[in-house]
């Protein structure tokens, strides 16, 4: 199992081949389309992260090995592609590792504007929510 930073480095490497913005977006759209999305039944008001521009749903479970399993969705496909990356980084990681993680890949691949609070696409809130889940499961485990 790769560590959070190993996965981040892997993503940065993958994105390094794209010079053109729209090629990056094509790839994100592809990732978004293949995202293992949250079940419709789990798209409850509890699981919605309201952005003003796009909506994001997120749900988390703890697997028997003590790692977290996230499922998510968004109504905007590029947002969904970024979600797919975030989930790839955080899925099957231990709560403590998620809490301790420094998220640097988004900056490195040039998508940090998508995390600006004014974008209101739900991504920033989603990352916060992932950390809350990690904190909550960590507390439960103790």
């Amino acid at each position, binding site marked *: 199992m790769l560590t959070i930073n190993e996965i981040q480095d892997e993503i940065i490497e993958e994105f390094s081949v794209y010079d053109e*913005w729209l090629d990056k977006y094509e790839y994100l759209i592809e990732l978004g389309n293949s995202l293992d999305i949250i079940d419709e039944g789990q798209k409850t008001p509890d699981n919605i992260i309201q952005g003003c521009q796009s909506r994001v749903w997120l749900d988390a479970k703890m697997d028997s090995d003590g790692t977290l399993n996230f499922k998510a969705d968004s109504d905007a496909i*590029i947002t969904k592609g970024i979600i797919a990356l975030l989930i790839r980084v955080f899925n099957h990681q231990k709560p403590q590792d998620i809490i301790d993680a420094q998220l640097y890949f988004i900056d490195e691949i040039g998508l940090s504007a998508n995390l600006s609070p004014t974008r209101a696409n739900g991504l920033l809130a989603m990352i916060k929510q992932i950390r809350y889940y990690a904190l909550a499961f960590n507390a439960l485990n103790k």
Partner: protein
Amino acid sequence: MDIQQIRNDFPILGQKIYGHPLVYLDNAATTQKPQCVLDSIMKFYTLYNSNIHRGVHYLSEKATEIYENARLKVKEFINAKSRTEIVFTKGSTEAINTLASSFSQRFINSGDELIISEMEHHSNIVPWQLNAQNKGAVIKVLPFNDRGELLIEKLESLITDKTKIVCVTYASNTLGTVNDVEKIIKIAHSHNIPVLVDAAQAIQHLKIDVQKLDCDFLALSGHKIYAETGIGILYGKEKFLEELPPYQGGGDMIKNVSFAKTTYAELPLKFEAGTSNFVGAGSLHTALDYVDKLGLENIAAHEAELLNYATQKVEALGGITIYGKAANKVSVLSFNIDGAHHYDTGMILDKLGIAVRTGTHCTEPIMQHFGITGTVRASFALYNTFEEVDALVDGIKRAKKMLVG
């Protein structure tokens, strides 16, 4: 009008964004500034900066003159009867908040009713809601049809003897619809009900004559007509402004102050508390002169051609839904690529150097009407070209291919 020459007046338009020439189509949000406006701002600060209405010294007099001449210019531009009817504000939002607060204090009581159209910008809804709630008044909604045209024939049936004001936008920032405000005003006036016209999206496209229109109040923003941000106007008929209590207290708006009793300044200063934005006002003067020089009819004619061209081209792509199909529109084109999210479309256009707005455009009731979460909005101004429309259409084609195949 020589558009290429006009473009040279706007230095920002020469930029490249992500390697593409900037195509600025977010003019309904704010317009770019011509060099003469930029120069005037620089000049005011370089030569005349001082606090207006407050000094006996030369600079203060010059600055006051710039400010008061700007007021006269606005008065002429909208053909108000008197300069006392022109109140400077930060923008349309502050103009409407000022009116909503003062008007409600004076005229609205528990059980009274206000009529607001379904296509208003939040800034012509929320200030009224806040004040109506305080007073226990009720807001009634004048609906629009699926083409985005107000159902003016319903107005009569919404009016009761409790109705205190009708608030309507001249042009919709989301749908582009130009409303027949003259007709609305006639109907309201036949019941002695005053009307507020939100002209934020009209002032830059349509010749407005407040006396001919006979509106009682009008709000506008300077930044949407090529002036600086942070300056706007509340127009009000003198008989109303005289009767309304001040909105904010402070310097400039008083005659005498003591702890026992304060008396207020004459109009329009009664509504202009605090140090005024004389540079903004001056920049509005310059911007209005610029518009006058080009001729608002010429500007409108060019924008109408752009809108027609864009509408035809976008419709011809197929698989696109256009929101706002009124017969009479300002140059606003709202749409969605079927099956794609407006946010994704906007993100892709952005990377092609095309600036559009996505989302609800501060008009959530319009979104609710159509059952959507947002639209992509392209809005055209005097400096936009047919080539830019072509770039937009190519961009939409590209986005469509990426997002829905």
